[in-house]
Every structure is written in structure tokens, then in C-alpha cells.
């Protein structure tokens, strides 16, 4: 229970006024505003165990940030409940605040005009962290994130990647058991991204922190998360291990074949479809969702038996493709 997250039937509806287009429309909106309900999050249920890193995925507007805001206590749910480290976040915001750290990638909590280290000191005072402990933790974060080369710079002069690294450190300075990261690696180059991933792995594995992360970077998910929760249009689409998702969604393989004769007519085979063709190059993929699809070996056998080939290569589809298939299927199910 110490650092676990429990989400039960969590829902959030926003009521907004529709802005009608044009001048007449604007006038009508003024006199007779039309209110619409937007179901940003609907009946979402999942758990995150202590010391687990869970990736919360979904396309833009899926409701990820809204979910995180409810779990951090900034937003009250319309219905459903949540518990973070045993505390109901939106009921006891301050108590929850001591248990959690949060980074909203595009927004900084650092003081714009102050050197980063001053921001850290202010946060230390707010969270009442003893000085020695603060210094030790800063040292640890510096080793992993290389902060000392720029932590005497004012925040306004930091690059985006530097700033977000500082924000990550700032969110963890009070040693919270639970960490929420909403697109923490936004705008980082590959080297820094890898550094941040290493940092997060360390925080989970060595410090036993529970991390809930949203990202649009599938490489990140692959490197960090063992489990993902996928939401779309506010609804939970699936909750499972990465492997399971690969199995369920889709083209888990591709065959890239080179035809011996460029004029050969190519058609699908039972359980195998042609994904695309460019001259002699033909890409085959499985027909239907992963669970019922042919295995790559069965498909290979069929293709080799049917066509005269100059060469063939097997590709396991990357997570990006898997997710695209998962999103598409979730869309179709609505």
C-alpha cells in the first residue's frame, strides 16, 4: 500500500460552452450559450503496484493528462475514486502532495528568474527536507542527470532539455514514493532521453518509487515499462504487459521478400496479406489481429512455397506499429 495507486471507475466530465463561428454566432453564444459535456475520462480502472513503472498511453486528447491531474489532486473526479499511497488525492491535497512528485513536461515549476539551485532550495524549505538529506539527494541526481554543469544558471537561460531535467530533479527532491510524469522527455535529444530513462530506471529499481508516465515515444515505453494502460476517448482500452499487447495487436511480423522476377503477379495467401509492393520488393503481413494470425514461420513457409524469390527477411514490427494497430482497433470498436 505504501506507494501503490488504485483507480476505480474514475470519470471526469467537463462542461464547456460551444463557441459558434462568425460574428452572429459569437453574439448568439453570448446571449444563449450552448453548453456541452465532454467526457474526458470515463470509468477508468487500474492499479499500479509499489515500485512499478506503468506507462499510460493513448492518442492526443485521450484523457491521460486529465487522469494524472485527478491522481495528483489538482482535479476532482466527477465520479469514481482514486487512492495514491493510501490517500484520496483530491480530498487531502496537501497530505497527498507530500507523497507525490509531478512533472508536467511543458510546464516548469522552477522559478524563472532564479538559478536552478535556488529553486531547489526553496522547494527544500517548502517540503521541509533536512539540509544534509537535500544535499545528498542533489548529489545523487547530479550523478545521473549531470545537473551541476548548469544548475547555477537562471532557469530562463536553460535549454528545454536542461530545464526538464531540472524539473525532474525538483519533483523528486522530497523523496516521494509516487511519481507522476506527464510527457517528461518532450523535446529532448536522444542522448539526454537515454540519460533520463536511466535516471527513471534507477528511481524505480533502486529507490522503489512507483512511477506513472505518459509519453508518445514508443522507444521510451519499450525501454522502461513492463506494463502499459491504453486509453482512448477517455476509456480504458487495455491494461497489460507489453508482450501481451504485441500478441494482441497486430502485425507482430512482416516478411520483406525480393521477387526473382519483377513481373510476377502477387496476391495474398490464406492468413497473409500484401502490405505494400515496390517493384521487386513485396512486404507481407498477417491477416487479422495478432491472436488469430499465422505465426511468422507458417507464413514464411506459405510465401516461399508460392513464389520464386531472390531473398527474404523477417521483421518483427516495432512497438510504434503495434500501437498504431491498437489505436485503430480501439477507434473501430467505438
Amino acid at each position, binding site marked *: 500500500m505504501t506507494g501503490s495507486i488504485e483507480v476505480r471507475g474514475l470519470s471526469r466530465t*467537463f462542461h464547456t460552452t460551444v463557441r459558434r463561428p462568425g460574428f452572429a454566432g459569437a453574439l448568439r453564444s453570448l446571449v444563449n450559450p450552448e453548453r456541452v459535456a465532454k467526457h474526458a475520462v470515463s470509468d477508468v480502472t487500474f492499479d499500479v503496484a509499489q515500485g512499478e513503472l506503468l506507462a499510460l498511453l493513448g492518442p492526443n486528447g485521450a484523457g491521460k*493528462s*486529465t487522469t494524472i*491531474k485527478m491522481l*495528483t*489532486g*489538482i*482535479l*476532482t473526479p466527477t465520479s469514481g475514486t482514486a487512492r495514491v499511497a493510501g490517500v484520496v488525492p*483530491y480530498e487531502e*491535497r*496537501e*497530505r497527498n*502532495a*507530500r507523497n*507525490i512528485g*509531478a512533472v*508536467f513536461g*511543458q*510546464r*516548469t*515549476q522552477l*522559478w*524563472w*528568474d*532564479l*538559478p536552478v539551485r*535556488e529553486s531547489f*532550495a*526553496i*522547494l*527544500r*524549505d*517548502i*517540503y*521541509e527536507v533536512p539540509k544534509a538529506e537535500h544535499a545528498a539527494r542533489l548529489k545523487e541526481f547530479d550523478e545521473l542527470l549531470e545537473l551541476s554543469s548548469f544548475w547555477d544558471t*537562471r532557469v*530562463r537561460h536553460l535549454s528545454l532539455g536542461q530545464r526538464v531535467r531540472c524539473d525532474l530533479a525538483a519533483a523528486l527532491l522530497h523523496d516521494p514514493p509516487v511519481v507522476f510524469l506527464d510527457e517528461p522527455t518532450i523535446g529532448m535529444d536522444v542522448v539526454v532521453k537515454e540519460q533520463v530513462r536511466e535516471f527513471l530506471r534507477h528511481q524505480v529499481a533502486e529507490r522503489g518509487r512507483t512511477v506513472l508516465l505518459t509519453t508518445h515515444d514508443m522507444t521510451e515505453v519499450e525501454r522502461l515499462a513492463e506494463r502499459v494502460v491504453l486509453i482512448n476517448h477517455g476509456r480504458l482500452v487495455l491494461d497489460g504487459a507489453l508482450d501481451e499487447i504485441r500478441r494482441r495487436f497486430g502485425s507482430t511480423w512482416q516478411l520483406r521478400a525480393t521477387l526473382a522476377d519483377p513481373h510476377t503477379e502477387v496476391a495474398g495467401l490464406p492468413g497473409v496479406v500484401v502490405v505494400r509492393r515496390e517493384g521487386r520488393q513485396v512486404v507481407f503481413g498477417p491477416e487479422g489481429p495478432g491472436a488469430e494470425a499465422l505465426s511468422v514461420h507458417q507464413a514464411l513457409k506459405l510465401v516461399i512455397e508460392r513464389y520464386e524469390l531472390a531473398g527474404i527477411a523477417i521483421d518483427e514490427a516495432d512497438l510504434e506499429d503495434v500501437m498504431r494497430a491498437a489505436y485503430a482497433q480501439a477507434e473501430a470498436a467505438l
Partner: protein
Amino acid sequence: MTVLPPAWRVGRVTPLGELHTPPRMTAALLRLAVQIVLVASLWHGLYAAAGTTAGLDRDQAVSYAVLAVLASRLREIDQYAARDTVIQHMHFGTIVYWYLRPMPPQRYYALRALGEQLYGLAWSLAGYLVCLAAGVVQPPASAAVAGVFALSMLFGQWVLYYVMLVIDQLCFWTLRNGAALLILIFAQNLLSGVYAPLWFFPDWFITLSSFLPFQATLSVPLSLYVGRIPLSDAAFQLSVQAGWIVVLALFTRFLWRRAARRVISQGG
């Protein structure tokens, strides 16, 4: 005995930001010097042309005007450049962090404002001593006047804190309504007597103003200082100021609660 929690050091935010930006301090110093010279010569000139006006002699009027410039320095810090105004936090969405810390936003705001005022006070005091030495400002008539002035100034700044707070709190609702805020700020400057002592305005204006909190911020303490309000009236004026503090304290507390509700219903 209560030990001060370490969080009081949040008050360092503004002074630190200023100290780390020396050009801003130079600019502030220059502006203060220019304003004082201009204001002093303006009132000298006016009196050379007109003699005693509105029950105030020349030295009183100059003292009033220069003190008004010095006092306005108390809260005149470029928070906009520091990206630390409520309206900017609303705009950038960083207001969520105020609600993500184990410190209520109202306490954070108050501590930060306190630090800002103490920093401004250092400036004002230094400026006051220079002006006093240069003979631009008259010393207070007696120790009693000085004491009453100090108390009234404290109350006045307290009222001003709440007025500025209300303006900031409005940003929780009127993100795109800068015009209303500008009007409020103008009213604050005009009705508090920063631009000119209130006795120069027509009677209806003074009556109107007496129903508003603005004159309690500056006009009252400065009038006490120059002797336009006699010491015998001081108790009444101080109690009016205290009344405004109570009313505004309750009102802003109500607004904080509404603002929090707005943040948690809109998600910042």
C-alpha cells in the same frame, strides 16, 4: 513556543530574483531618482505660481509627493519579467504547481508578498533617508506623529496587499480581461493619492473615495505624516484602516476558496 517553519524562506523569492538581475536594480534606482526630482520640482513650481492651496503649504506638499513616490516603490517590482504573476501562471498552466505542494497557495502568496515588501522597504527607507538628508522631505513634526505614521503605513501596506491580491485573484476568472485589471490599478493609483493628494480633487470625488479602500493604503498615512490629518483624528483613521483589513481579509479568503474550486474543477 512555535518555531518558524523553514518555508518562511519562500519570502526570499523576489529579493533573490532582483539581486540576480543587477540591471533591473539599476533601472529601479534611476527611475526612483528621476521620479523624485521631477515630482519635487513640479510641486515647487506649482506653489511658486499659486501659494498655499488646499490647506497645505509647499513643504508639506513636496514631502507628501516625494513620500508617495517612495512608498509606491514598496510593491513596485517587476514580477511580470520574473514570470511570477498569477496571470502568467494561469496562462502557462504553471498555477497547478501552487496546488501540488504541501503549502496552501494563499500562504505561499502571502510569504512571497511579505518578502517583496521587506525588500521594497529597504529601498524606500534608503531613499527616505537620502531625501531627508537632502532636505527634500520634512522630518515628522514629533515622535508621536512618526509613530502614528509608521503604524498607519503598516496598516496601509496591509490594505494594499489585499487590494493587489484581489486584482491577482481576479485572474483566476478573467484570464483575458486585462482591461478590467488596468482600470483597477489606475483606480488604486489615483484614489490612493499617488498621482496627487486627494484634497486637490472635487468634493464629490473625495466623498466617493472615502467609501473605497484605496485611500487607506497611502493617502491616510501620508496625510498623517505631513500633518494634513491632525493627531487627534489618527485613532479614527487607524480604525478605518483596520476595518478595511478585516473586510478585505475575509473577502480574499472567500476568493481563495473560490479560486481553488475553480482550479480543481478546470484542472488549471
